[in-house]
């Protein structure tokens, strides 16, 4: 069952990731492919006993970030990127595909050298309780810094998107 789920989720994640970059008609389709990819990745996180990260993936990525993308695309009323031929030259496409393909092969070969079986983990592994306890004890400084970063990001976004800076 879990093996089947792994194949379903990973196929969905990879194919919809291809959909993100392969869609030249309108960025809306890319954003919707991105949602599918994020949700499939959340499924993979749950298979990896990382329920909390999977939950946050659905809420933050599929929920907030992609909605922000869609919001901006619709706000700017973008229709594709102009002429599709102007998207990119075939030679650039070929070079890009070669570089990405070669790097993937190299990565897979390196990863295959280090295959190890999974250890058994206790029931609490990756639950909200376990991650929350770690975040608010050992990593409390990181949480504080993340909060400051979010505040700075909000202020920066408001200032940057203002129509006229006084």
């Amino acid at each position, binding site marked *: 069952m879990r093996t089947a789920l792994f194949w379903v989720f990973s196929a969905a994640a990879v194919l919809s990731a291809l959909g993100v970059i392969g869609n030249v008609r309108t960025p809306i389709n890319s954003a919707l492919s991105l949602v599918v990819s994020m949700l499939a990745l959340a499924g993979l996180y749950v298979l*990896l006993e*990382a329920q909390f990260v999977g939950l946050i993936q659905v809420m933050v990525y599929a929920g907030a970030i992609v909605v922000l993308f869609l919001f901006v695309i619709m706000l700017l009323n973008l229709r594709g990127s102009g002429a599709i031929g102007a998207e990119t030259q075939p030679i650039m496409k070929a070079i890009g595909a070669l570089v990405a393909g070669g790097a993937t092969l190299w990565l897979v070969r390196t990863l295959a050298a280090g295959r190890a079986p999974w250890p058994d983990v206790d029931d609490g592994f990756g639950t909200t309780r376990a991650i929350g306890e770690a975040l608010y004890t050992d990593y409390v400084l990181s949480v504080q810094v993340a909060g400051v970063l979010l505040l700075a990001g909000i202020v920066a976004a408001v200032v940057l998107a203002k129509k006229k800076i006084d």
Partner: protein
Amino acid sequence: MGDVSGFHFQVVAALIFMIGALGVLVRRNIIVMFMSIELMLNAANLSLVSFSREIGNDQGQIFAFLVMVVAAVEVAVGLAIIISLVRNRDTVNIEDTSQMKW
């Protein structure tokens, strides 16, 4: 989990990362390039969580969580930059925005 191990998850992460990198290399629409960067961040997260499962330690998941926080901030600021770019230049094609100064 049968025959699926950390290696399979790492291969999925590598594939998604390279699809994201390919997107940044071949696409010229700045919003799609930005989405490709998100794909790469997600692939790195999957790799972190998978290694965290492989060594039975939840530190990788905490790091993935913090990466998500940074990604959220990055999207907010990046999209604000894109909005002001489109307001000023009326284009999302990065070939039209090759100058540092207008």
